[in-house]
């Protein structure tokens, strides 16, 4: 409100000055039949699994804006600390800002305690912040990392509830990915099995959900090592018809050229042209 700034100094943080105006505008616009611009969501499949030595996190790479793909290769696995990574689903800006704020806070915290940060700390910070804003920050997160107590995996919902589980999925493709997990998850898997399981779960989300697509990103976190595989697998290549896994060679669909030798050759005559060199000049290019 304009008058408040006259008497008291302005505070930082969210400002609700334009909310009433926005509500009135929204009512007017819907009366005319148009749509208000919507926030860019990630409409995603993200998942994580705990294996013998650590965590594997997986995500697709499509960002949607209503019915349009806004970003074909966006990165949904965010860095929180050297041993903790977080996948984000929901409104893209919210997940980005939330993970960056928590990453900064965790860095300050670890500098002041001079210890490697724990996953439970990141979970608690995220949960308290999301509850404070009562779900208006649309960030659904899968948080995973390895700390002094071993590997941990959490799923965090926009309203602030969290679950600590051995395998979690979030996003619009979460049911497809969870179906794959429920079928094939075993305790104490090897790294390669875990990577394959996560890749298949994300692929299930990509092929069965409109909001997910493009490539599969993986992040493998173990004690002392992080492998950020981007892209791990390009499930949907643009311009190439789909390639099935069980075929040995990718067949060239859409290639309409005739094979060599389709047309039979009746006669062949070769005429050699005698050309002699008349003049040879060299022109230097100015490449400075």
């Amino acid at each position, binding site marked *: 409100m304009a008058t408040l*700034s006259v008497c008291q100094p302005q505070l930082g943080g969210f400002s609700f000055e334009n909310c009433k105006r926005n509500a009135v505008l929204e009512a007017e616009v819907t009366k005319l039949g148009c749509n208000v611009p919507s926030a860019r969501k990630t409409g995603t499949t993200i998942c994580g699994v705990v294996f013998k030595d650590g965590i594997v996190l997986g995500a697709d790479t499509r960002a949607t804006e209503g019915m349009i793909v806004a970003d074909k290769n966006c990165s949904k696995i965010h860095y929180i600390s050297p041993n903790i990574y977080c996948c984000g689903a929901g409104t893209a800006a919210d997940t980005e800002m939330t993970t960056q704020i928590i990453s900064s806070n965790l860095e300050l915290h670890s500098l002041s305690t001079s210890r490697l940060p724990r996953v439970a700390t990141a979970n608690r910070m995220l949960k308290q912040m999301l509850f404070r804003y009562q779900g208006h920050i649309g960030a659904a997160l899968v948080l995973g990392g390895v700390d002094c107590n071993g590997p941990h995996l959490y799923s965090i919902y926009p309203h602030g509830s969290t679950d600590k589980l051995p395998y979690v999925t979030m996003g619009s493709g979460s049911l497809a990915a969870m179906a794959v997990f429920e079928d094939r998850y075993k305790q104490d898997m090897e790294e390669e099995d875990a990577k394959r399981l996560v890749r298949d779960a994300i692929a299930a989300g990509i092929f069965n959900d409109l909001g997910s697509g493009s490539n599969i990103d993986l992040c493998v976190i173990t004690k002392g090592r992080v492998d950020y595989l981007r892209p791990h697998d390009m499930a949907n290549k643009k311009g190439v018809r789909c390639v099935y896994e069980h075929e040995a060679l990718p067949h060239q669909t859409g290639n309409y050229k005739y094979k060599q030798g389709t047309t039979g050759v009746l006669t062949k005559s070769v005429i050699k042209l005698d050309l002699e060199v008349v003049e040879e000049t060299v022109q230097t290019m100015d490449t400075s």
Partner: protein
Amino acid sequence: MNTRGLRSQLKDSVPVTGMGQQVGAYGVQDTLRSGFSSVKNELLPSHALELSEKNFQLNQDKMNFSNLRNIQGLHAPLKLQMEYRAARQIQRLPFLQSSHLALDTLKGNDESISFEDILNDPSQSEMVGEPHVMMEYKLGLM
């Protein structure tokens, strides 16, 4: 979906007294300073989070102090509040930017980053407070 219009909030909002009008002299609306008054504008918050965000820091402090009182006794919150009061006085005049360094260090805000530090930074605001009016308000002459 998180987009909610004013309609839905009007339905389940409870009228609160936290959004009171600026009352001038003689207990009447101060139209010159605070503009025309409208009951609907003042009665309901424009966003579900507006009130809770306005009072968030106060409520957190109240909760922490009452916890501290229950655990350690009355002396602990009293001593802390005395220190806060002393640190709060280290600031410049209201229309200038003060860093609140001592107060932030006491409260522990120097080791955390939240939306207050990123969005709407007061040092970057386009509006400047009017010095005379702000001093009058601070000294209670208004």
